[in-house]
């Protein structure tokens, strides 16, 4: 049963990482101990990354809420030139344009998975938080399908993860994280970037369908 637990944890990693790229609300992050949870689950999923999560937990404690918000805005929101644009198309498109073809492809992936962006969302569909959340959704659905005994469906969700992760997420995360590490003076975001980068780098989507993976060990 470890596989399913691991997968469920992997799903959670995506969710928490996504949450950490939203405008930071220090108190909430502290109350819910998001970094603590991330640290715990990363321990199993991607031990190399977990140390940084632990560091984030301390860093957030030390950083002023306002400082966090300003750093977040400088990096990802504007109004001035973004230190680290959080949009896939900026890294994937040749001319660094926003809302490029890749954005549309990403949107189509969402639709194919039966998802639409919620009304409140005003961000481009290839925002890092949204893409991470999408991965969370796909992994969760994979686990859910396994729980329901529907292996074919689980396989489908795995396949989608492969496509999305390989084509639209992993190719730009490293460049994006480097920008954050270079640009931000706030330790929390540097740690977050390092953590994300390692997580993406070291935690690929499981290569084959679970039961065959099980048979090979």
């Amino acid at each position: 049963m470890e596989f399913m637990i691991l997968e469920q944890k992997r799903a959670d990693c995506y969710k928490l990482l996504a949450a950490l790229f939203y405008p930071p609300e220090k108190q909430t992050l502290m109350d819910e101990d998001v970094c603590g949870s991330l640290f715990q689950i990363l321990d199993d999923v991607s031990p190399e990354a977990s140390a940084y999560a632990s560091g984030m937990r301390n860093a957030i404690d030390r950083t002023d809420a306002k400082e966090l918000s300003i750093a977040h805005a400088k990096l990802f929101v504007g109004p001035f030139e973004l230190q680290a644009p959080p949009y896939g198309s900026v890294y994937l498109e040749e001319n660094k344009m926003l809302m490029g073809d890749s954005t549309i492809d990403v949107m189509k992936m969402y639709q194919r998975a039966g998802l639409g962006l919620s009304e409140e969302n005003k961000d481009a569909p290839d925002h890092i938080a949204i893409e991470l959340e999408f991965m969370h959704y796909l992994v969760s659905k994979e686990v859910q399908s396994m729980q329901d005994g529907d292996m074919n469906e689980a396989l489908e969700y795995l396949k989608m993860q492969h496509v999305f992760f390989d084509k639209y997420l992993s190719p730009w995360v490293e460049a994006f994280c480097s920008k954050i590490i270079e640009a931000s003076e706030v330790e929390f975001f540097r740690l977050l970037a390092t953590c994300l980068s390692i997580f993406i780098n070291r935690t690929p989507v499981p290569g084959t369908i679970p039961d065959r993976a099980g048979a090979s060990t």
Partner: protein
Amino acid sequence: MFNPYSIKTDPSRCLRHRYNKSTCSRCLNACDQSAIKIDHGLSVDERSCTGCMLCAAVCPTEAITVERYNLNRTLGELLIADKPVLACSLKDGLMAHSSGPCLGFLSPEHLVSIPVLIDKTLQLNLSECSDCENTHISEFLKESIAEMEIEGVVLVDSVNELDYHDIQTGRRDFFRMLRREPFQAAHEFTSSLTGGGTRKSYSEKSLPMKRRLLNAAYRAGSVTSKKKLQKLYSHIAFHKDCNGCSACTAMCPTGALSKPNGKLYFNTFSCVGCELCEEFCPKQSIYIIPIKEHQTHALEVCVGDKNDQCER
């Protein structure tokens, strides 16, 4: 420790929501903590709720359920054990083959059906309950068992009395297990249970999980167990004032009453005895009545034209 099993409410199933004059207060009466409010819509105060889940156990229509809990999986886990033990997951280190929320969630339907479906005696590990704030649930379980004369469930208050044997399942075993027949059978019985969460509208009819469980047990059970299970079913009677307006079919949360071709149909298997139709009937012409032992045939679908009262 994080408790993943919280209470989930679904106003679309709550009798008070469906009918503003309903007097249903089953959950209110079940809650020690007065954590449930129904005056301005069904809500649960999470601060005072202790998660005993008795409200979920008494709610006839699944307006209150245990979030994140999948009965299907529990059944699967119990099936592969020779002497299955079920416990809550709120205390660390409880010996069990399957663990879930506080066992207060086990309604009479659960208690009567699970042993039939797994075809074994089920042990409930209550060894830590005496120290728990939800200690009152064991009383509730005892009462249910006594009332229903249930034989397949044993309440185990002390670890020493527990007949527990660990099963080692790795990843490989798990998937192999998934393909094993008993699991498939249980899975088949309850595969529809997972659909419960996506309900969108009040008009959608849905049968509570525990009722589906009961029906599955009824179909699988022996003659003797059928008789026992039968007590949980209801029958219906119409007064002659019924004008066939069929408003009751809309009010019924489970689809037990329906009028597909101009005739009124009643399906005992779908009736959870919530009595909302009785309360609501504009003509006050419906009566929900307990099934009597000799009425075995009535457990099958009661078709309108068998009873001229239904035909309007």
